[in-house]
């Protein structure tokens, strides 16, 4: 990251990602705000791959210990975020099925 070109590339990417995120997310309806939140919670679980690399490159026992904990936390973030989101969306899936609701 000492290379200034890499830094600017990163800024380009960050800007485009921010716009993409904004555009995609502003279309999510209010009733899906919880799954949106837990879904984005799951997506930042990508931190797991970073934690894995951090642990994989750790050399001292202290680094290993911190990396180990980071991988545990990241893995819990990913699986928990996924399962929670999936469970919530499953309910919206079920609620729409005709015949389940007696409301007219």
């Amino acid at each position, binding site marked *: *990251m000492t290379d200034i070109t*890499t830094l600017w590339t*990163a800024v380009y*990417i960050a800007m485009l990602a*921010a716009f*993409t*995120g*904004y555009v*995609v*997310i*502003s279309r999510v309806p209010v*009733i*899906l*705000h*919880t799954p*949106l*939140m*837990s879904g984005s*919670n*799951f997506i*930042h*679980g*990508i*931190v*797991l791959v*970073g934690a894995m*690399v*951090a*642990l*994989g*490159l*750790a*050399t*001292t026992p202290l680094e*290993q210990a*911190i*990396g*180990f*904990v*980071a*991988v*545990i*936390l990241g*893995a*819990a*973030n*990913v*699986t*928990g*975020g996924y*399962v*929670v989101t*999936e469970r919530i969306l499953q*309910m*919206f*899936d079920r*609620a729409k099925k005709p015949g389940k*609701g007696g*409301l*007219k």
Partner: protein
Amino acid sequence: MTDLSWIIDPVYIATIFFFIVGMQRMSHPLTARSGIVWAGAAMLIATLVTFLTPGLTNVALMAIAIVIGGGFGYLAAKRVAMTDMPQMIALYNGMGGGAAAGISAVALLGLTAATGGDAATAGSATGLFAVIGGLIGGVSFAGSIIAFLKLQGWMRPRPITFSGQQLLNTTVLILAILSGILVILQPAWVPLSVAVYLPLFFVLALGFGLLMTLPIGGADMPVVISMYNAFTGLAVALDGFSFAPPNYAMVIAGIIVGAAGSLLTLNMAKAMNRSIRNVFFGAFGATEETGVQIQGSMKPIDVDDVAVMLAYADKVIIAPGYGMAVAQAQQKVKELADLLGARGVEVKFAIHPVAGRMPGHMNVLLAEAGVDYGHLLDRDEVNPEFPSTDVVLVIGANDVVNPAAHRQGSPLFGMPILDVEQAKNVIVLKRGQGRGFAGIENDLFYRDNTRLLYGDAQETAGRLVQALKKL
């Protein structure tokens, strides 16, 4: 072993593609579920190819950590009740923040070891990103854990305030930033060694997250949870830059989450007519309006009368709040709505954006009970309908239906509410005579067209169902 590491970048690119598609599919309830499944598959493959990173050691430790963390995440998420979702989301969010802080810590320790504590490579961009990522990640970790403890009821959910609190918080933040700058620059003239201020930096970051969340109470949680969600996203993005070469999958995914979280945070704050600053530094409920005398009295009503009222109404709107979640009354409420629907009564649900403890909380609970989302109306959709409504059933909601929000001088003034008081009759299901979260007296309860039905929401809804069946 052949070097397969070339596969990592293409897979990460595909992962990002599926993340974005997955989020896009969330724009409709019918496609949302397939979206998360695609994103999940992409994440799984991304995790697997990460094992191919060249020079990776500690692989056994890594596998053990993944099994422990993944196992915990899976089991806890499978078992948690829908009513406990807000704290679960806060917890997983905090774990992501903690992982990000951990990555920063390892990166900074590595940098420090490489420089031997002198300024040889100090001031590098890597260090800068790792420090900012560590600060935000640490704040998000500690803050989310406090939010989790409050939502879980293991800690008093009321705002915790003391004199000099803001001064202390600001001081801790400034010290955290200063020690972060020391970590980046490692200037030779500072008598302390990096082994002192590096741990100090993380302690201060965690401390600030903790202190910042203490004064925030239960009803402000929708804002807080979505804000820490954005924080963790940003921390992950910044940590992506702490690797050489940068991990662009982390950068892009993190920034998208940051954008999503910020958008939601602003939405939630707007729904309460409060600025983010006010949520975090206002210690809501501390101020009490003086000199306002509420006219009228609280008039109770019994279940049979309410049942008759509902049965012969043309249009009924149900306005649920956090009380419905606490009492786990959603199933009974759905039964009640079905019975009324079968009698030809038009039934709708009025959903306030900040009802409950997280964005969309009421929608999730009602969807769990099987209510078609077509019956769930947003505040702006439902407000014009109240004047033509015969009965509004307020179930465990308080501040979001308090007409004091229309009165200048009230702490709630300006908050867009559900205008239930415009309906012909308002029935409030309530546990006792207590006040709402904001600690503000609710004018609605004293109105002439309001009647109070005391009792546990689940039990009361059940008794209403029984009474309706007999009619």
